[in-house]
């Protein structure tokens, strides 16, 4: 199971990287891409959108099914990955290199409540 130790996770299978400036980079986990199968479509949030923790803000569709992607914490969207929208199969090729959106958290401490790698591994075990 590929679960990098330097990232934080949600039980809804998002990974979160805390950047030096405090912003968050977010994608879906390797476990999620494997469960979804071949990803063919992404609908990502626009920059400037205010989001609540746990709000469904993006959609990932594989050949098999559509799934929601949730905001791990409250904040404001500050960017989304257009390259991934144009080539969604990148999520299957490398789920951790393929970020989906960036978020400026309303409260930096909220990130501490997310799972660490061991916690996520336990959650999907």
């Amino acid at each position: 199971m590929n679960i990098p130790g330097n990232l934080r996770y949600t039980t809804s299978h998002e990974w979160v990287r805390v950047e030096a400036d405090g912003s968050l980079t977010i994608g879906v986990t390797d476990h999620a891409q494997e469960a979804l199968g071949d990803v063919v479509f992404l609908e990502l949030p626009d920059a400037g959108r205010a989001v609540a923790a746990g709000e469904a803000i993006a959609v990932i569709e594989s050949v098999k099914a559509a799934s929601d992607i949730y905001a791990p914490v409250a904040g404001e969207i500050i960017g989304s990955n257009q390259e991934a929208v144009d080539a969604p199969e990148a999520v299957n090729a490398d789920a951790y290199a393929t970020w989906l959106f960036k978020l400026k958290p309303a409260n930096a401490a909220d990130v501490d409540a997310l799972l660490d790698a061991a916690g996520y591994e336990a959650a999907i075990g």
Partner: protein
Amino acid sequence: MPQHTPLHAAHVAAGARMVDFAGWDMPVNYGSQIEEHHAVRRDAGMFDVSHMLALDLAGAGSKSFLRGLIANDVAKLVEPGKALYSCMLTPEGGVIDDLIVYYLSDTTWRIVVNAGTADKDVAWMQARLAEGGFDAALTVRRDLAMIAVQGPNARAKTWSALPGSEAASAGLKPFQAAAWGDFFIARTGYTGEDGFELTLPADQAAATWSALVAAGVKPCGLGARDTLRLEAGMALYGNDMDESISPLDAGLAWTVDFSDASRDFVGKAALLAKPASRQVLGLVLEDKGVLRAHQAVFTAQGEGETTSGTFSPTLEKAIAMARLPLGVAVGEQVEVDIRGKRLKARVVKASFVRKGQALI
């Protein structure tokens, strides 16, 4: 506990992603569903379809029983081994199941039904047999495995994997089958490509599967099976029809045979009393997104609904089968509700890809 086919261990050993399908633990893919899909369109792939149920029907009354049981007419089968696709209907004209009947002789027939409906199908058939007092007996063949080998190179690779099988099967026309030792080889399938469906003793399934892998046939899961059948415009029981809908409204009028006015069959009166009120057509999404089942379709003639939808790996576009109001024509533009947004789609015939070629 989900049931296992005779090939279950082979799937698990190959690293397949397993899912529950109609009570069976089945492979959905062995890695990439899209690669498996392309293997069938371009070369050869195979599916474990042992969850489907083979039935043998034998006895002097078999033919008259079948003529009354199903909506297509087995009387048109005269060549040994010829297959017929048909719906089996309720008295109200709903679809109990879609099935294939193989004519072996006037007194021996092979029937293949869907996994999810197998129990109710057998119960229904036994009840009709008893009710009509037919001289015919139905035997459930859970001792058999089924492997569908599909693709432009499927027949040649089957022959190379199973020495001696070519002589028995090279002369088969589409929708025809022949016995080969303990095997039953049918030139049928559910992908829109050429190929065989092999029915064989369960204890020979694993060795046959391995021989086919060695001959270059790619194992494919139910995921690819669904995208292939949808591209080919083939209906899936439970999605595109069920007991709540008449075959005339489900795009299956071509499988209902009214030509012999003297023949009665279960559901006939109901179908005659209620002509088609909808038609089944294809949709190709012109905006970005993926069509799925049960999305509302808005047309100039009123509302319709998708019954199956997916991303088509061959066309690299979203496609769907949809039940639409009568009067909607091929070429028209319609709108589909996807998560609250109305996206543009084009109406096409409900057959998108056959024999590797795009039809739209």
